[in-house]
C-alpha cells in the first residue's frame, strides 16, 4: 500500500471520527463517572464525596 493511499484512508477515518464526535458530542474533557449514586443525595448533598474535593486552588495574582 502506498503512503498516499494510507494517508487517504487515515484521513477518511479521521473525518468519520470528527463526524461521529459532532453527532455524539465527544469532547476532550476529563470527567469521572461514578455509578449507583444513592438517591439520598437529594436530601443530604453533603453525604456525597466529591472526587475533586481538596483541589489545590490558585491563590495568587501578580
Amino acid at each position: 500500500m502506498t503512503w498516499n493511499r494510507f494517508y487517504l484512508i487515515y484521513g477518511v477515518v479521521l473525518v468519520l471520527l470528527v463526524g461521529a464526535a459532532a453527532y455524539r458530542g465527544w469532547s476532550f474533557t476529563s470527567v469521572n463517572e461514578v455509578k449507583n449514586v444513592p438517591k439520598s443525595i437529594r436530601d443530604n448533598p453533603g453525604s456525597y464525596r466529591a472526587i475533586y474535593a481538596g483541589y489545590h486552588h490558585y491563590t495568587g495574582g501578580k
Partner: protein
Amino acid sequence: MSPQTPPPHVESLTCPNCGAPLTVRSMGRAVTIVCDRCHSILDAKDPQLRILQRFEAATGDEVPLIPLGARGKWRGADYEAIGFQVRTMEVDGIAYSWREYLLFSPYKGFRYLTEYNGHWNDCSVATALPEADGTSARYLGKKYKHFQTCDAKTTYVLGEFPWQVAVNGDAVTVTDYIAPPYVLSSETDGSETTWTLGEYVHGADIWKAFGLPGPPPAPVGVYENQPSGLRVSAGQTWFAFAGLATAMFVIFTLNQLFSQREQVFQEAYRFSPSSTEASFVTPEFELKGRTSDLEVRTDADVSNRWIYLNYALIDEDTGRAYDFGREVSYYSGVDSDGSWQEGSRHDRVVLPSIPPGRYYLRVEPESDSSFGLIGYTVTVTRDVPVLTVYLVAFCALLLPALLISWRTYNFEQIRWAESDHPMRSIGSGGDE
C-alpha cells in the same frame, strides 16, 4: 531455461593476438569482440578478426557482477549477458564510473542493464524520437526533466558488442532527463545521437532472474531516477489533504448550524465561604433528544478572589454521576508596569456524550474563608459545538502531510544534489 527455448548459438574463434579462445553469442550481430585475456578489441565483421585496439586496464581487471554468458528470463524473454563495459565521466576532477551489461535475446534483440553504486537500470533504445529543449524532454507523451549533461568515455570493455567500441576513445556527451522511475538518455558523438530509455530496477530482481549467487551490492545514496521508497507523491498527499480538510470544514459548518444549543438550566446562587455546609443540589432538569455534549458554564462575581466548585451531574434514574471540578478566579491591579489582570470571571466546560434523561447538579463551592459573599450563576446547555475536536483533528490531518512533504523534499534534495540543478536546502544561505 524453458523447454521451447532453443539452445544458444555459440561460435568459437581464437584471438589473433594471444590465441585465447573467443566465444561469440550474438549470432552474427557482433561488430566488435574483446578478448578477455589480452584485451584486444577485434573486428567481428572481419574473417581474420582484425585487431582494432589493445588496451591495458588502468586499475586491473574489472569483474562483471553479471558474468558474461549468464542467462536468465528478464522482462518475459530469455536473455544472455554478452558484453560488459565501464564508462567514466569526470566532474570537478573526480571520476565517476558506471557499468553497463549488454544483454542479447535471439527474439528480442539487445538491451542492457546499467549499474552505479548498487543502483540498476534496465535500458533499451528509444522507439521514437524524443523532443528535447535542454531543460526537458518529451517522449511518448511523458515529460522528463533535465538532470545532467556530461562527457563520458568507455574505459573498459569485455565480450562482444553490436557497435564499434573503443577504450578511452572520443568522449560522447551524455544527457539525462528523468521522470522517476524512468531516465531518458541521449548520447551524442558529434555526428549521431542515440536515445535510450531506462527504468530503475532492483538488484534483487536481476539476481533472481539470472540466478546470481549471493546478494546484490547494496545501493548507496539516491540515484537520479530512483523512485522514493515511500512511493508517495507530496502533490497527491496535499490534494487528499485539501479534500479531507474540506470535508472536515463541511462537518464543522453543519455542526455549527444544527447544534441545538438548548439551555436546560440556569440559576444564580450566593456562597458564603464561612458557611459550614455549602453543598446543595439543583432542581431537576431534562435532557431530551440524542446523546450529546453538555456545557456547564459558571459566571462568578470574583475580583481578586477565587471560587472552586465541585460539580456532580447526577442522572436521577440510573444513579450515574459525572464528577468534575471548576475554578473561577480573577485578579487585577496596578504596579510599576501599569495595570494587570489574570484569570476570568467566566468558566466553561463541555461534558462529553451525556445520554438523555432527568438530571440534577450537586454543587459544592469552596473559597477562602476570609472572602465575603460570592455570587455565581450556573448555566447548563446541551448540544454545543466543540471547536477543539476540529482543531485536534485538523492537526492530526496536517501533521502526516507535513511529514510526507518533508520526507519527499529531503529525498528530492539528495537526488538533485548530484545534478546540474541542485535544490537549495531550507535555511541555507546564499553565500555557499
